[in-house]
């Protein structure tokens, strides 16, 4: 078994109203960032896990997302990185 640091992005699904993201997009427009078409605010979760391989660590975190970390009704997630720990 090795240890891995897996980070995952969880964001509100496109098309679902994200009032927090909208408020931030409006503020960015006020600041002059006219190019911002959309902002969505989510979570970035970093997990240290033991697994036999980076693939297994990623698979375990995907299962964690399906069962707890993300809401399947309203959120999408993606593994942002898997880093091998010393």
């Amino acid at each position: 078994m090795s240890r891995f640091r897996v980070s995952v992005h969880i964001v509100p699904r496109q098309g679902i109203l994200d009032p927090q993201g909208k408020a931030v997009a409006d503020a960015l427009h006020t600041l002059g960032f006219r190019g911002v078409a959309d902002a969505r605010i989510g979570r970035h979760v970093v997990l240290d896990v033991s697994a036999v391989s980076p693939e297994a660590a990623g698979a375990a975190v995907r299962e964690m997302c399906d069962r707890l970390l993300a809401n399947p009704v309203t959120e999408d997630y993606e593994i942002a990185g898997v880093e091998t720990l010393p």
Partner: protein
Amino acid sequence: MKFGIVTFPGSNCDYDAFRAVKDVLGAEAVYLWHKSHELQNADVVILPGGFSYGDYLRAGAIARFSPIMQEVATHARRGGPVLAVCNGFQIACEAGLLPGALLRNAGLTFLSQQVILRVENADTLFTNRYAPGQLLRVPIAHGEGRFTADPETLERLESEGRVVLRYVNAAGQLDAESNPNGSQRAIAGIVSAEGNVMGMMPHPERAVELVLGSRDGLGIFQSMMAQVSA
């Protein structure tokens, strides 16, 4: 008839529910501790409001894995009545007892105010003491109450008469200002496909005596009493 009221760490409407059941309705009530595996022969389970487990991650996401929730799910699968209020509604959705999800209020702020609800279906375990279309004054107190579901789920809820309560104005009409949290189709309360689980964001247990400003919520408890003891 016995009501079991679940206490999670962070529940804060369990006492209100207990008082509504015991002192106002006149039924038996027991608290069910979140670590317990025993429903103590409760006929009805109430998942009360609050901020279970600090609402960490998402409202209701952690409470769903409490030991008592396994028993509540088994009770619900057997057709046992479950009333899920506010945080309880969020927990019931996270647990898959009800469809959809409750997201951050569209206006971003926590809302504590009276709302007017229209009874959309008076032929349920929870609303049979009301008249169809009856208007109820009941308070809300939540930051994450915006009911959201995919279009197919919304259509199914509508066509099966499972949208039980909607936010309306004083004339009983839908309008944007009267939908406090931006819920899809102004949905305030729904029931499960089998009709034995009801989730609602407003607090009927806080509207059971005139001293509280309204007793319009008492009918929810009387409806369960009428149906379950019958």
